[in-house]
């Protein structure tokens, strides 16, 4: 299924952000451009897992082309924040817009343009590396050349390409998942601990992948504990703690005051 073009939503974006960034965003795959506003805009977002409020009123704006590093202790809500942006976690309270679309009402339009690398790689253990990449690329309508390019970019075009994903090491699986992500040509990349399991070469490759993604117009959110690595790459950094997002400039929660939600 080919993706539907995203329709422009100038008014909503401008109102929501108050700032309009001049640079137009247009990835290689020549999707119709839309007016630039924040790629991610969260307002007092609450997300509940079971009965546990993983996000407790988080607010965040991410501008196009940013590489935003999310840091914070384990259990702070980083993973939930990324999964929420991917449309996997329901919004309990608050408002969220991703790529100019409302998360509650237009989730389908968001999803086609978001790529998530979560804790799990989303690979089929019995299929080879190439088959995995091919499957995920084709569901997004990528061509054979793009698939080959993605494999080559991560050094998976040699002997490894025909090995079953279940037999790979953790780092190699991570690389395969990255190749799938590249081939899917997302405009918003959500990387959850992408460094986990990668060796030094793999980390260099990851940096390279992120740089290329940004160059082609994507926006990247990275949650990582590898601060040295990620900081060199990031254009901005926020701290997630207790289900809230703290910007680096002022250490006050950007969320609403506790107790006044709704």
């Amino acid at each position, binding site marked *: 299924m080919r993706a539907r073009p995203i329709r422009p939503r100038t008014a909503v974006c401008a109102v929501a952000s108050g700032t309009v960034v001049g640079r137009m965003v247009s990835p290689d795959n020549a999707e119709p451009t839309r007016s630039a506003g924040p790629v991610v805009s969260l307002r007092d977002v609450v997300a509940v897992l079971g009965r546990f409020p993983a996000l407790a009123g988080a607010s965040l704006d991410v501008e196009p082309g940013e590489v935003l590093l999310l840091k914070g202790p384990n259990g702070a809500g980083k993973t939930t924040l990324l999964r929420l942006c991917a449309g996997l976690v329901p919004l309990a309270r608050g408002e969220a817009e991703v790529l100019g679309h409302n998360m509650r009402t237009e989730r389908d339009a968001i999803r*086609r343009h978001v790529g998530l690398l979560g804790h799990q790689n989303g690979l089929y253990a*019995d299929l080879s590396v190439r088959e995995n990449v091919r*499957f995920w690329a084709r569901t997004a309508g990528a061509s054979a050349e793009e698939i080959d390019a993605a494999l080559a970019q991560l050094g998976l075009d040699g002997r490894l390409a025909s090995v079953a994903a279940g037999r790979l090491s953790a780092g190699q699986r991570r690389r395969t998942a990255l190749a799938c992500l590249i081939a899917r040509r997302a405009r918003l990349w959500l990387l959850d601990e992408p460094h986990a399991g990668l060796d030094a070469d793999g980390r260099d490759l990851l940096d390279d992948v992120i740089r290329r993604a940004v160059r082609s117009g994507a926006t990247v959110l990275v949650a990582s504990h590898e601060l040295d690595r990620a900081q060199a790459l990031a254009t901005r950094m926020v701290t997630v703690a207790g289900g809230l997002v703290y910007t680096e400039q002022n250490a006050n929660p950007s969320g609403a005051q506790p107790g006044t939600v709704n």
Partner: protein
Amino acid sequence: MWQTARLVAAKDLNIEWRSRQVTNQVLPFAGLTLVLFAFALDRDDITARVAPGLFWLATTFSLIVLVQRAFAVETSDGALDTLRVAGVDPAGIYLGKSLALAAQLIVLEALLLLGVIVFYASHIRPAGIVLVIITALLATCGLAFVGTLYGGLAAGAKGRETLLPLLLLPVVAPVLIGATRAFEAAFGTRGGAGIRAGVEISDGWPWVGMLAIFAAVFGAAGVLAFGPLLEEA
């Protein structure tokens, strides 16, 4: 939708081809069921008479195993999440997975049929061959549609191993009944009370109609409902 369906079906069948789980585990399981039925019933004349029912019962049990497997593949490494994030058309996923499931079931049924003929000394009347094939195809479609629909509902849920049979078995009862009666007509055997000794092949065709309705109803329901079911499952 069809493009996605083809991709997903090819992927599922490829996984099966690589892992050989059906060949190595489900088939022996189904064959074992046939043998155990023979032990439990312990009378040759009875097993021959109830062979069609046992055949479809073994198929139904295998269906549950196959559906569990089809969704374990999707949930074990978060592939289902990735499918949702990627916005892959749920109707396409549904049709693709149903198709792959149906293909596996057909292979299983062909071998089970052989087993029934060998173990239970059943024989198909020459005129009943067409009836057997059409019945098997339609029943398989129905089973695959229902199985995928309820498998998707239970996927990722706590206690899905027990929930799936609870949901699935009552629903597939019409298929079990219909396909069994149609097979009896083709085999020329009569289960149950055996009041009427002979049964005509034409007795089987109304059941084929019912199987077709079943497959159509649940296929349509699955295409419509699979998307909402996958959300936050």
